[in-house]
């Protein structure tokens, strides 16, 4: 059976790992040194980092549990980028410092918007090929 971290899936894991690393490093520094300046934005950065780590681990490990973890993480990520993206455009005051998800991920080449969609498509493709 096709697994989550093989072929194109391995590329997806690589991109997720880069985002987990970048978002994690950034969130860690922000929370540690400037939490008071923009608590909402920095907590969201930390949440995004956790979601990226979960998606990376879920996709890399595969199996039923891994796929379920990845599915939830990609779902939360897609919802997050849409909600935070919209809010950041409507209410700039609440987001003085940008997060990974601000402006639908425009600061990161919109990859945060594309990535969960690719992740969900990949997971659907795998479950279809497993069923068929």
């Amino acid at each position, binding site marked *: 059976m096709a697994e989550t971290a*093989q*072929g*194109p899936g*391995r*590329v997806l*894991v*690589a*991109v997720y*790992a*880069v985002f987990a*690393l*970048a978002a994690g*490093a*950034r969130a*860690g*520094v922000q929370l*540690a*040194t400037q939490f008071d300046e923009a608590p909402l934005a920095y907590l969201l950065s930390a949440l995004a980092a956790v979601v990226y780590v979960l998606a990376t681990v879920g996709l890399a490990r595969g199996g039923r549990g891994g796929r379920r973890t990845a599915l939830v993480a990609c779902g939360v990520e897609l919802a997050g980028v849409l909600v935070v993206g919209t809010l950041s455009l409507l209410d700039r005051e609440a987001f003085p410092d940008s997060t990974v998800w601000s402006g639908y991920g425009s600061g990161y080449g919109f990859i945060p918007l594309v990535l969960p969609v690719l992740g969900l498509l990949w997971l659907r493709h795998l479950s279809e090929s497993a069923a068929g």
Partner: protein
Amino acid sequence: MSTPLVVAATVVAVALAALGGLSTALHRRIGSAHLAGAGLLELLLLVQGVLATAAVAGGHRPAELTTFIAYLGSVVLLPVAGLLWARTEPTRWAGTVLGVAALAVAVMLWRLLDLWEVTGG
């Protein structure tokens, strides 16, 4: 941080990403050219890392020093991680995996250079 070195590493990184994409397009696995490219990139990053560490030890203080150090450590590890992850992939997608790591290195290098040039406090 040395700008010429960043430019050189970026050129190598982009070339490595192109090479990776090419091997995926041609249905090939990664070969010695990819290995050499990743090795050269890693060498340039290590030199950059040593120079930056020496300058920080000598008193250069980027405004966001913690972020700078976290990114510098990450960027040095990226080609190694990318290569290991690509080497265990038996299909043509190994090249793209390596390419992702190489492009991430290129982006992070310029972010590092930005951080390096903003000093103060």
